[in-house]
């Protein structure tokens, strides 16, 4: 290893360990500061993960809308055979796929749901109409899907065509709202980190004012004076992000079982999941950058006073 690099490396390692040592010397203050940072990072991370999971589910629904086509029930000669009717629909270029659910299949599905078994047994006959699930080729084009649903409803043998877009639109709007919320919270988190680090570094500078003055006098460059404070800012944020990762996953773990119970009531296998190492890495990098920025700004403000005047 060239000598300059090894000198540079050993200097940085020395500052790193010196800064770690200082953090350990005042454990209560350090842990409190780190926890404040961790909480500031945790809140948007949790919300992000919830919104992210919700979005992956709803995007699937919104991107793949369905029209439920309830056919006239009974064996009227006028009414077409549901399977043949489905085949006919497939020739329509605006329709991508058709799936037939017979009244018997429908009844069986209900039968498996909580509390329905007894009610169904009490029924004299199967009240369910034949059902065709139509997958339109219109994708996210909501208006086109509505027109298609109207067309289908007017066809011979169709009782009603249900295109239940309204609640999906509401859900999408809620998800959008939460996404905006994550963004706002993340910005507040950033401001919080900058303020906490600025204040921590400012106190550090006050504590070490004599040392800074002497180092300046004996020919220490501003980079040399700045270095331990940059490390302090970065280390606080690094540990803050690390704690935040742990706290977020712990929160998600606590939420997991109620969420899956709620989801099962909606017949969904929705799960929130964990914060991936990739996201944790990005959050850590952003936090460290903000920490560096804040400490750099704070130290430079102090260093301006050291300039000969």
């Amino acid at each position, binding site marked *: 290893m060239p*000598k300059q690099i090894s*000198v540079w490396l*050993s*200097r940085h390692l020395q500052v790193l360990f010196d800064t770690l040592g200082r953090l350990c010397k005042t454990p209560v203050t350090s842990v409190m500061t780190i926890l404040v940072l961790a909480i500031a990072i945790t809140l948007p991370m949790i919300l992000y993960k919830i919104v992210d999971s919700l979005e992956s589910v709803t995007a699937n629904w919104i991107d793949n809308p369905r029209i439920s086509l309830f056919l006239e029930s009974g064996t009227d000669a006028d009414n077409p055979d549901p399977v043949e009717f489905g085949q006919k629909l497939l020739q329509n270029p605006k329709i991508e796929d058709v799936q037939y659910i017979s009244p018997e299949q429908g009844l069986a599905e209900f039968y498996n749901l909580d509390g329905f078994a007894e009610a169904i047994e009490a029924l004299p006959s199967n009240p369910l109409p034949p059902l065709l699930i139509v997958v339109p080729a219109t994708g996210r084009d909501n208006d086109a899907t509505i027109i298609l649903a109207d067309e289908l409803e007017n066809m011979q043998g169709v009782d009603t065509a249900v295109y239940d877009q309204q609640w999906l639109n509401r859900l999408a709007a809620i998800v959008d709202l939460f996404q905006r919320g994550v963004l706002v919270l993340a910005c507040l988190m950033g401001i919080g980190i900058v303020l906490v680090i600025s204040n921590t570094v400012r106190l550090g500078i006050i504590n070490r004012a*004599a*040392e800074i*003055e*002497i*180092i*300046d*006098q*004996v*020919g*220490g*460059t*501003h*980079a*040399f004076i700045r270095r331990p404070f940059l490390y302090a800012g970065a280390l606080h944020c690094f540990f803050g992000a690390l704690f935040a990762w742990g706290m977020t996953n712990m929160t998600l773990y606590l939420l997991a079982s109620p969420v899956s119970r709620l989801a099962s009531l909606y017949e969904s296998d929705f799960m929130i999941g964990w914060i991936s190492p990739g996201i944790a890495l990005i959050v850590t990098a952003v936090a460290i950058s903000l920490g560096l920025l804040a400490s750099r700004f704070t130290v430079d403000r102090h260093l301006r006073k050291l300039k*000969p*005047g």
Partner: protein
Amino acid sequence: MIRFSQVSKRYPSGHEALSHVSFTLVKGSFTFLTGHSGAGKSTLLKLISLSELATRGQVLVADKNLARLKGNRIAAYRRTIGTVFQEHKLLHDRTVEDNVALPLVVAGTDHSETQRRVRAALDKVGLLNKARRYPITLSGGEQQRVGIARAVVGRPQVILADEPTGNLDPALADEIMQLFLQFNQVDITVLIATHDYRHLERIRCGVLALSDGRLVSGEQDA
């Protein structure tokens, strides 16, 4: 080595600490800077150590115009100057050897070389056996010697001392002066601010006398 030409220093408060001061100190000279307190001694030293900038006139040290130095060149310049303060200015959370090593550490000198030079400097001031002690456990005279060791460890071209014997009894003060004379013998330019006239009588050297910010005796040639 050090040349002042028509140097004035006015502080933002309006107080003119120095006015039209001109002198030249040649390399390897030993000079006392005298005057009543408030005469401008400290200001003059601060102009040389680049803690302050002249309001008017030119300060040249080793042919460098100090007003032109910016950023890291200020730091690099200060490494060529060893400064001894009356109040020592030692770091009390570091050992004697760490205090002395500071100018080498900031200069990025490698570890073994730093060790060697710190020991040499401490040996010179007679404190090698107290290298691991903390400054607070040392007497005033010893602390001042630590400050001197720190000033010379970087092998400066110039040593500045502001009232280095101000708080010491005469015997200790003489010891400290002997140290400065020894450094002067290896061609280091020494400038000492003092109001202790005893030294002036004993040591043959140049004298710059300030009164109310004006040079009243000393070399006026610049």
